[in-house]
């Protein structure tokens, strides 16, 4: 378990003090895939670097499995770091070493005997799917392959925790998906806790169990992906949720001009109810005409949930509030975008 307790990090230069992380507290459970999302400069990189003491907190501490890592020095710190893998946006491989030698480096550092190192490297190469590329140099690999080397290297000393610092930000969408699948596989197979920081909503949405939203050095929201997606409260979170559903405003404008008549509703279906035929049931009962003008279904690790925009026309004035009541009765969140 990772406990971040009231951690603050201040960088001071001659002219000013920069509060990169302010009074952050967070608990990350064993075996969890935990996402920290925020725009650049939000302090998430600094926060994650305090988990393996690459940065030391100005105040507060980080406790990993009962050990205050912020207080460790020298050999003890190095031993602890060996059990915390880390991967990076720009992979940070040694270009002078081949794939297998890169993966072997943490084992050399840990003092593992040569025979064991070879066997371990072989296993890791298979785990990340790089068979046949053992002798290649990083410059001969694609971005996705480089990150696979990064992941294998991070896992070499059987860590309990894997930190991912914008690990997919330099990759194209297809490669991002493949790397995320690999991370999920590793999380399941090896039961490793994964802490990943990103500015990409799709990433946390796809693989994270819980997420924290960071803004301006503070953690502004923590919860399951479901909760955060369905009920974002902080403005930054709302922006992330909206941006993940594309250019919301522009889309609404288009929809409004497309449907000049009637009421426009935004319906949010959560995972638990999204399999029920709610719409079709209500359509049969209601005297109103309901046409679906936009739909978006998102798949998160806990299940799917969706946003639906509907244009409601016809019927009597009383029918409209009744319809909204019916939706809400079924557990659908209703937002009136435009009144009839």
């Amino acid at each position, binding site marked *: 378990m990772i406990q971040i307790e009231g951690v603050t990090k201040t960088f001071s230069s001659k002219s000013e003090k920069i509060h990169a992380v302010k009074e952050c507290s967070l608990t990350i459970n064993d075996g969890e895939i935990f996402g920290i999302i925020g725009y650049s400069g939000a302090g998430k990189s600094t926060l994650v670097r305090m988990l393996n003491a690459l940065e030391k907190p100005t105040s507060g501490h980080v406790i990993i499995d009962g050990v205050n890592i912020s207080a460790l020095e020298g050999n003890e710190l190095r031993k602890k770091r060996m059990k915390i893998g*880390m991967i990076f946006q720009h992979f940070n491989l040694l270009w002078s070493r081949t794939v297998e030698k890169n993966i072997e480096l943490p084992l050399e*550092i840990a003092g593992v005997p040569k025979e064991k190192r070879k066997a371990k490297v072989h296993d890791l190469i298979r785990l990340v799917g790089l068979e046949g590329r053992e002798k290649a140099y990083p410059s001969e690999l694609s971005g996705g392959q480089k990150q696979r080397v990064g992941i294998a290297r991070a896992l070499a000393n059987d860590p309990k925790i894997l930190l991912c610092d914008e690990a997919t930000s330099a990759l194209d969408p297809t490669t991002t998906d493949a790397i995320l699948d690999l991370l999920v596989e590793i999380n399941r197979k090896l039961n490793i806790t994964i802490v990943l920081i990103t500015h990409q909503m799709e990433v946390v949405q796809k693989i994270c169990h819980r997420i924290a939203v960071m803004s301006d050095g503070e953690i502004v929201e923590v919860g399951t992906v479901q909760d955060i997606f369905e009920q974002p409260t902080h403005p930054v979170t709302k922006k992330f949720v909206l941006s993940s559903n594309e250019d919301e405003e522009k889309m609404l404008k288009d929809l409004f001009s497309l449907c000049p008549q009637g009421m426009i509703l935004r319906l949010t279906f959560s995972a638990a109810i999204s399999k029920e035929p709610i719409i079709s049931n209500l359509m049969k009962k209601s005297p109103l005409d309901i046409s679906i003008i936009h739909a978006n279904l998102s798949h998160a690790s806990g299940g799917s949930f969706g946003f639906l925009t509907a244009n409601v026309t016809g019927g009597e004035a009383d029918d409209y509030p009744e319809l909204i009541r019916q939706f809400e009765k079924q557990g659908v969140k209703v937002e009136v975008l435009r009144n009839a």
Partner: protein
Amino acid sequence: MLSFLNNVDWNQMLTAIQDTLFMTFFSLLVSVCIGLVLGIILYVTQEGGLYQNRLIYRLLDLIVNVLRAIPFIILLILLLPFTKLLVGSILGAKAALPALIFSSAPFYARMCMIALTEIDKGTIEACKAMGASNKDLIFKVLLPEAKPALVSAITVMGISLIGYTAMAGAIGAGGLGYIAYTYGFARNVPEVMYTATVIIVVIVFLIQGIGDYITRKIDKR
């Protein structure tokens, strides 16, 4: 057509080539060893370095800068008493070595520091994150990653050393520079000067070619 070459004493020329090569490669070897150590110390003791130490850094930085600031011909003369004490003579190829090394080692130290500074900070951070000690970082990460830059710095220095040996030759160290100056200029036998010059150019091209080849071989970026 090649009759003018009859004026060249080929035995003398061969000895001169040997002297030049000896001075160049011996001082190159020693300068690289000393410069590498100094460069690493400069790199690790600088602000934010692995073994940050203001005093050592300032002191070494000053020594390196001062030695690099003194023009070579003046350094040669300044070091004469020291050379006499160390080598026992101020004439001959051996006597040129102290001055050659005193000017080249700081130069290599600076080049070495630049090469190390250019290593990606992210790579160093990644290795720290995997639990590397400072010793691991220097020997398993920094030096191997900087290798191509370190080798091309040797090439650059080897070539400038040939130029320095010619200067040292002019004040009595022997070698191609010496005979080009004494025979070619002072005794007015231009054939000797031209021949010596051509040989120097060939040696420079060889060093450059070999250096480039090795750099290409080990550069996997």
